[in-house]
């Protein structure tokens, strides 16, 4: 798996988390650890304060839409120990998704949570100033959701314009089956399935 060079194994974090806050970890593998969404602030707080992990900085916060659920991904890092922790929270409610805010722990979450709220529509309870950041109030929907104006609903795929052959190097002609030729097979090819 393409884990980063300084990324901690999820199981190690999960073990420690489970010891300190029993029952908080739901899934873990060697890349990331997933915690119960309602208790994500507890997990962040513990990781932030712990001597062993010292997650002093929230490096990045974003959300991924997996059709049936959202995954909010926290990339935490310790500058002193030079390692990275990937924490995930699974938000199943697709209509009114909500999570506790991490702003009380990380001030750096201020704008990132607003961004996730704007583009993905996940509410962060406890955020002091949760408004849309890029789009205007009243914009219909949240653009980064997979059900927002996909192919066939007005958006033209960039893949449609993908070249079928390299004209400078005809030997590198690609297998036509690998590419998207017709419009109807676009969604089934790459847009629909979520990674395991």
């Amino acid at each position, binding site marked *: 798996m393409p884990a980063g060079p300084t990324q901690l194994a999820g199981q190690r974090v999960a073990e420690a988390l489970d010891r300190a806050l029993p029952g908080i970890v739901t899934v873990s593998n060697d890349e990331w650890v997933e915690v119960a969404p309602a208790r994500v602030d507890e997990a962040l707080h513990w990781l932030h304060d712990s001597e062993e992990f010292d997650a002093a900085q929230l490096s990045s916060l974003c959300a991924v839409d997996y059709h049936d659920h959202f995954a909010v991904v926290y990339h935490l890092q310790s500058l002193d120990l030079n390692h990275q922790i990937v924490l995930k929270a699974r938000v199943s409610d697709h209509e009114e998704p909500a999570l506790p805010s991490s702003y009380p722990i990380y001030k*750096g979450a201020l704008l990132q949570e607003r961004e996730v709220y704007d583009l993905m529509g996940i509410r962060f309870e406890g955020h002091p100033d949760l408004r849309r950041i*890029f789009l205007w109030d009243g914009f219909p929907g949240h653009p980064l959701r997979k059900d927002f104006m996909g192919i066939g609903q007005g958006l033209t795929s*960039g893949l449609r314009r993908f070249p079928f052959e390299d004209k400078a190097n005809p030997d590198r002609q690609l297998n036509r089956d690998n590419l*998207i030729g017709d419009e109807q097979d676009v969604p089934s090819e790459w847009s629909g*399935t979520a990674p395991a």
Partner: protein
Amino acid sequence: MVGDGASMTTSAEPYVLNIGPQHPSTHGVFRIRVVMDGERIQDLDMIVGYLHRSMEKLAEERTYTQNIPFTDRADYLAAMSSNLGLCLAAERLADVEVPERASYLRVIFAELQRIASHAMANGTLVSDAGAWQTPLLYMFREREKILDLFEMTCGARLTTNYMRIGGVAFEPPPEFWPALEELVDELPDRISEYEELLTQNEIFVARTRNVGIISAEDAINGSLVGPALRGSGVPWDLRKAEPYCVYDRMEFDVPIGRTGDVYDRFMCRLAETRESTKIIRQAIEGIPDGPHKTDIPLALRPPPGEVYGRVEGPRGEVGFYLVSDGGPAPYRFHLRAPSLINLSLLRELARGASLSDAVVTLGSIDIVVGEIDR
């Protein structure tokens, strides 16, 4: 009554001042609504999104290679660094080997881009402090030469689109190398010139010293990265902490500030340009012969999985969070934009400061609106 300071204070009605979206010191279409009491700022609210293109959504419709030009347009002052970030992330995701010569070329171009970007950042900062564009234009002189080098190599000056997954797009032309060496020879002199002109200028020092102080704790907690973090005295540089390309073979120092004020951030940038010239010189000496890229399939289909790749751009950590579902386009493409996240502390910094100080502080954080809005 007389002599009693508290009873002598006057009160004034606060008013709202709109700085931007078109304003000389917002460096782009960036708007700040400021509630002011005389010259003091009581509160402020950032309004961004005027340049929003929903890059992350568009990226889900394009292959990994097709997404490289988007990264040019995100941070248009440091296109090479963002290019590099995406390529490194995609290479790790798809497990692509990069030839050594390509890694060296990447280091050279990323460092050139850092010098160009820092020249712009420092120039506009001094311009914000009121030196009527003179330092900016002097710093543009070097930036211009660097952009000429870019143009020589890849035909574009700003939106370079030079890095590729598996290497770089083109081998630099033969006339590139003497021009590069000439530039690297004269850069230290130029940097010394700026140091003489600006760092001892009392007005500039009075304007920037002890202004906009960010403590090390706040800087870390507020997710600040790059010179904004190092200016506060935190010795954090991804080139050292998590060496990518061939940075582990380069010898360079990480300059850090003393108090975390505007002046420290300015000085850190200036010192970093000096370190960058050192890196470029080492890269010129050490660059091996060989191919400049590995061939990858045009429609790269990485195995399902996810990756967070990051590089130290001029403004700090540029991170790319890519999720693949095995298709030719990323399932999710997230750009961790240092310009946006570095603004997290602006409100706290500007509250209680005067308008002049807030403008200089904003200039020292060094934002690029294309990257904020994406």
